């Protein structure tokens, strides 16, 4: 009887521990917050302007500059040439610049990049899903992502070419 009782006690405490662990764990690790510096950049799967499907993980092992932008955003328009120059400059080290257009149509975006002579890949986020995932509230917002997929720096607002260059230098460690 006494032994039996002990096992019942242990069993009940174990059940409580398991249920408690699962719920507490999920409460602790639920990511209701947006990614910050040092966090892993959330994976995405989107259509590019080239009509192909693209994933962030395609660029694993390379430094990525992920720029959220829109054609109607003046600072975005202003920093486009600087981004393009830096893309060309760092091409040897494998740097990738991605322009994530938020919520605009293909025609609008296409005419824009022709006008601004943008060569880096443009991805489309038509229903704002990626924007929300990344917690972007203002344009432009730029994520500097290290080759291991973690976020080196988040910059909200227009960037100068010097800033981009220095940040990339800091990120790739050169």
């Amino acid at each position, binding site marked *: 009887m006494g032994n039996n*009782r*002990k096992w019942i*006690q*242990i069993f*009940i*405490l174990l059940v*409580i521990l398991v*249920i*408690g662990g699962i*719920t*507490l764990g*999920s*409460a*602790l690790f*639920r990511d*209701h917050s947006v990614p910050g510096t040092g966090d892993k950049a959330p994976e995405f*799967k*989107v*259509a590019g302007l080239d*009509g*192909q*499907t693209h994933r962030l993980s395609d660029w694993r092992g390379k430094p990525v500059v992920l720029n959220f932008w*829109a*054609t*109607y955003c*003046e600072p975005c*328009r202003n920093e486009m040439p600087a981004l393009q120059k830096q893309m060309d400059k760092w091409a040897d080290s494998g740097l990738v610049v991605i322009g994530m257009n938020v*919520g*605009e*149509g*293909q*025609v*609008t975006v*296409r*005419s824009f990049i022709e*006008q601004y002579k943008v060569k880096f890949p443009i991805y*489309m986020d*038509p*229903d704002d*899903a990626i924007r*929300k995932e990344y*917690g972007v*509230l203002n344009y432009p917002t730029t994520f500097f992502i290290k080759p291991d997929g973690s976020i080196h720096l988040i910059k909200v607002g227009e960037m100068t070419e010097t800033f981009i260059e220095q940040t990339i230098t800091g990120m790739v460690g050169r």
Partner: protein
Amino acid sequence: MFENTKCECGHQNPPETVLCESCGKPLLDEGDQTPLEMRYDGVARRSQKANPNPIDLVWNFFSSVKIAVYLIVITLLGSTLGTIYPQENTFVNLDPSTYYKENYGTLGHLYYLLGLSHTYESWWFILLLLMIGTSLVICSLDRVLPLYRALSKQQIRKHLSFILRQKASFADELPADYRDNPSAWVEAAASRLRKKGYKVYKDANGTALLAEKHRFSRWGPYINHIGLIIFLLAVLMRSIPGWHMDQYIAFPEGQPVKIPKTSYYLLNEKFTVDYYQEEEMSEEFREKGQAVPKIYETQAVLFRCTENCDNPVAEPILEEVHRHNIIVNKPLDYKGLLAYQFDYRENPVLRSVHASLKDKKTGEAFGSFDLSMTDPKPAYSVGPYNLELKGYYPDFQLDANGRPVSASRDPNAPAFIFLIKGPGLAAEGEVYMYFPRQIDKERFRQDEINGALGAKLEIGVRSMEDVQISAYTSYLNVRVDRAMPYIWTGAAISMIGLIMGFYWQHRRIWLRMDGITLSLGAHTNKNWFGLRKECADLLNQTGYAVEAKSLDKGGKSS
């Protein structure tokens, strides 16, 4: 440490037993004459044992009702913290790191930093709920099993001091006519008690009796606890992925919107807001001159994505699964997916036009095509002409350098730049600019821009029927709560337990004869008045003359 816990009747009791489990003899305060503590019938609770090991210590902690009360009080206080400022999840779109500071100052920022802006999802709040649940389980088990054992094997002939120390008791010699045959009195009492609905047990020689009714009411609190545990578990199950969702989404008219993290799309076909007419309003409202809405209605169509759902390159294939007109408190409900009317905004914008290409001079139409204001296609073929869309500006403007730009993504002033190729035009095509809205056409001088081409061809709509306008954006609260049936089940079981405990009382009457002396003791968990009256009636009907009040032996009434 060993304690001699053997009663004089020969029964071996567990340590800390208050009343012998068998004969009911008080084991702790033998000399005393005050009414007995009858809680849990004097049996030892499980947790009361000598030399507790670490597991016992955890068990003992949670088995304490005092701890349970503290936990409940702390949880109550903790949950009030979540009501000081609005919680994060009540906003559609905000950055909590700045919102609280901007709106509520330093205190608000502190509130955010302490994590109180999501109190009910915080680890400490969930830990408190878990501890209450643990306490419920262990408190119940710790008491219900020993109590069940005690009540299911009650001895009929109780110790004299057990009977006389009941809060309602009586002792006297038998009435004269029964003194020759005490068991005849016991039999008479038994039949009267049976009539009152008691279950009567007599011992072998008929000189002791136990009468009992409504024992089931003792299980009420435990059934209530089972209900509460189911309730708590159901609340915790909400954290299983897909079990709980609560979000606010904007649905512009005429455009299916994906419900995040599901395979469903919802289309707001038409939103209606209807106001009360002046003659329908009361005098007071009329004086205020305010428009009072009568009904908000979203004609909603729910689609399920069947193909290309996760393929960003292809258009998802949608299948209509449900249709419902959502009004306040009448949500769309499809397999547990609920959509409630929450808010609306009036922002009339062009959605698409069915445009035609005409010969400006003759008015002859070459054909027509659909032109979307959200994501127009890059090419159209109309009669003998090919139209290539080179540019689209939803909110057309000229920037400081005179270059065309869009001021926003909303089609407030849509402008299209076509390259038209076809008969009578230059081989490389000619550029035609099209403003669907008449007001923009004049403001930006469409005819002057188009020049010679504008004199030959014209893109336009024939009538307002060719124009589709989204007048309203409807905001819906989309919810999934798969835990709800379990929450209701738990609540119902809990209610059954409460009713069992509230409306019935467990009454017991013990009798024993020692020669010609009758000793009667009675116990209930509430309504002592009723029990004393029942005992007095019994005695008065069997030859005694007693007043109900005289049976009261004091003690705290609970």
